[in-house]
């Protein structure tokens, strides 16, 4: 079966599911939405960190750019005639997300071109620093158009509610589809070659800097869209939503899922969103237990939940091993 068909089927399933989301307890609904957003964030970071091997610690920065720019777009549009009443708010949200994603992608390009010449730890530090720069810039921006406050600096920015189950998971599906298609093509093997051996990749004609920048821009684009979904769901964003702690949270998902395994990363995004919530009954011990679980998981499976295996190959191997015994 061609991937298009599988993804179309899943999308149909999502539409069906979206009809019953109104009946879910709001708390669980919130957790489910965060799972969807985290899947988009982790899948897109996996393209940069996992598949291309460039250790970025600034993903929350791009998420922040996307969140704020899309929020500015939607606030402007809803107060200038294209409100939520027009076609259920779909056009506003689509434009806002696209603008947010493009802004994040452009930022990714601007950050990527100079910093992707660096390797390993240096790149991590530069992206981390960039994340903080974005946050500080947002903290100091505040302007009004027609009497309505935009961005709001450290105070925060009120955003119209436009996200929904279908938006969040629809976008997650698109992100997965894009990353998987890209990686599993001949062109996409260039990204993996950059990760595995830059010298050999260059000797085979792969323009390594160009591949790195492209991975960075595509990853940032989806991070920006993820930010847009986030902003339009929680309806009030502050710069503190996008600190480097958020970046690290996403990096942990990528590492735990297995660098370079889309399905492992999805599973890790689900697990790591649910775990802190499920541990709430332990109140003050929550983060200790959470950290301990992470340590145990990393010791037990240092290669990540799935390693670099794909979903089908992972189970095919299990089956083959079971048949042998």
């Amino acid at each position: 079966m061609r991937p298009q068909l599988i993804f179309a089927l899943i999308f149909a399933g999502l539409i069906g599911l979206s009809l019953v989301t109104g009946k879910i307890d709001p708390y669980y609904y919130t957790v489910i939405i965060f799972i969807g957003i985290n899947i988009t964030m982790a899948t897109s970071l996996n393209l940069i960190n996992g598949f291309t091997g460039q250790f970025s610690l600034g993903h929350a920065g791009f998420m922040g750019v996307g969140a704020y720019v899309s929020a500015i777009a939607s606030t402007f549009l809803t107060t200038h005639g294209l409100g939520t009443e027009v076609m259920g708010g779909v056009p506003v949200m689509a434009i806002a997300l696209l603008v947010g994603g493009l802004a994040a992608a452009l930022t990714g390009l601007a950050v990527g071109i100079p910093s992707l010449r660096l390797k390993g730890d240096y790149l991590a530090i530069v992206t981390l620093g960039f994340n903080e720069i974005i946050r500080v810039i947002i903290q100091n921006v505040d302007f009004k158009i027609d009497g309505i406050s935009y961005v709001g600096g450290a105070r925060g920015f009120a955003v119209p509610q436009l996200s929904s189950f279908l938006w969040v998971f629809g976008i997650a599906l698109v992100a997965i589809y894009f990353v998987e298609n890209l990686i599993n093509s001949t062109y996409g093997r260039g990204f993996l070659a950059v990760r595995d051996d830059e010298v050999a990749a260059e000797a085979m004609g792969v323009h390594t800097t160009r591949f790195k920048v492209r991975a960075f821009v595509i990853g940032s684009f989806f991070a920006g869209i993820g930010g847009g979904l986030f902003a339009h769901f929680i309806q009030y964003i502050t710069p503190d939503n996008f600190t480097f702690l958020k970046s690290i949270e996403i990096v942990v998902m990528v590492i735990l899922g297995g660098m370079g395994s889309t399905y492992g990363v999805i599973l890790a995004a689900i697990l790591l969103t649910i775990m802190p919530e499920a541990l709430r009954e332990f109140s003050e011990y929550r983060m200790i237990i959470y950290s301990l679980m992470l340590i145990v998981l990393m010791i037990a499976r240092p290669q990540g939940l799935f390693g670099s295996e794909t979903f089908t190959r992972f189970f095919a191997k299990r089956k083959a091993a079971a048949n042998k015994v």
Partner: protein
Amino acid sequence: MTGLELQHVTMRFGGLTAVGDLNAVIEPTGLVGLIGPNGAGKTTVFNVITGVYSPTQGDVKFLGKSIKSLKPNEINQHGISRTFQNIRLFRGMSVFDNIRVSYAPRTNNKIIGSLLRMGGFYKEEKEVAMKIDRLLEFFNLSHTRDEQAISLPYGDQRRVEIIRALATSPKLLLLDEPAAGMNPTEKVNLMKLIRQLRDEFKIAILLIEHDMSLVMGVCEQIMVLDYGVKIAEGTPKQISENKHVIEAYLGEVVE
């Protein structure tokens, strides 16, 4: 038209002259051996040709054009491809995917085509797979197609590296110690293979090798480097009788 031309190439690292004033010409279908004792600067010559280093002095010309200031990936696009002394296969990939990387910078379906899978995407992927399978068959490696490249025996890994280099459709192929780590049978087969490659693909081959019988048996022309300087050049017969070479390198081999 000459193939590769090295004109007064000098490569210095600080006070050390790794290659000094090297002049050489390789014809479009030449089969040339580059030999010399350890540390003679052979691999440095490869690195200068493929753009890993930019020569301190002199010029490198390929098909009449200067390539000395180009980057390694651009030089590869000009038709020079190489293998590495310390095998550099892509660790996370199968044999098939290792070779597929060589087509990554040469596909018509780049980002948009791959994302949307339109514009003859599947047709092109099928063509690439066919080309790879044909190369694997030529090297008798079809059975390893889906195995992890780094899990293969040493000799097979070297051959996969040669295929990967060939997949970029080079006009000049540089082989850095292709027989290292191979047993005598593998070496004999490799000799035949290298000649076959040249005849089949109509390319020039420059190879670094320590195994004298291999170099003497397969190459039509041999260059000898010692301390970065070319001390002799000629046919295998001439080289084996050359006094300087015997002193520097072959000493005990030729009685």
